[in-house]
């Protein structure tokens, strides 16, 4: 169970810090946050169901975008054409 051992409060309550926390979560996942931000986020999501949920969804979206978003193979002939054009440009 994902939530096993975690001590969340009322799951139906909206977190007043949700938007701010989401911004910090995104910075953290992008590896652009400060240690202070990370400490805040990790402490906060440990006790906030909603923000942990956001964190989990953000991670899932990145995973699916990275897995399925990069799907175009470079045609071999394009590389050959580029090399040929460079030869001509010399």
């Amino acid at each position, binding site marked *: 169970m994902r939530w096993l051992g975690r001590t969340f409060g009322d799951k139906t309550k909206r977190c007043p810090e949700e938007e701010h926390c989401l911004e910090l979560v995104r910075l953290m996942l992008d590896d*652009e946050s400060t240690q202070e931000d990370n400490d805040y986020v990790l402490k906060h999501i440990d006790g906030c169901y909603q923000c942990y949920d956001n964190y989990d969804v953000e991670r899932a979206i990145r*995973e699916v*975008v990275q897995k399925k*978003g990069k*799907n175009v193979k470079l045609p071999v002939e394009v590389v050959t054409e580029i090399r040929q054009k*460079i030869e001509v440009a*010399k």
Partner: protein
Amino acid sequence: MFCPYSTCSPLIFDIFGLVEEEQSTKPDRQKTELFEREFMPHLEALYNFAFKLTFNEDDAKDLLQDTSMKAYRFIHSFAQGTNAKAWLFRIMKNSFINDYRKKSKAPGMVDYQEVEAYYDSGKGTSPRDITVDLRAETVRDKLGDEVTLALNSLTVDFRTVIILCDLEGFKYDEMAKILDIPIGTVRSRLHRARNMLKAKLAAYAAQMGYK
């Protein structure tokens, strides 16, 4: 030296390690070796970027060739040891804006500021509206083309930041240089782009019957 990219300021040009000098006297052999070593490894990523900008295989090929030729022509401006991939992405992004986007008149293109204002007004889909569980493996496994569709449905400014960050792994400061915008704008644009992408993916998942 004049800037080959009309939208780029001399300062940003310098940041990218572009050396202020006239056309290099480097022998062609050296230029070709440098091109092969520094630029060729990034062609696949560049082609992916081109395809996601143009949505068209032929246009993507043209954009890649155009970018490659500009990179070769101005190779004397590239300082070895600096970020070749970011340098190339910047050339491609500017080529797209200056040439391809104007030519195609980009159907359905929306002004970024307008979209931003719309989302700021609270009328746009908020992440809070999302009820579909995008974490569920069943949902993620089924999302294939929909990911591409969701990404492609974003306007080019929002699409670009997601591509650069999530697919190409650029840092915010590198993105700021590639896009020629302040780092704070990168951050806020990415945040809004992620909100939109999340809403679109959730909508696709919901259409597929997932709750």
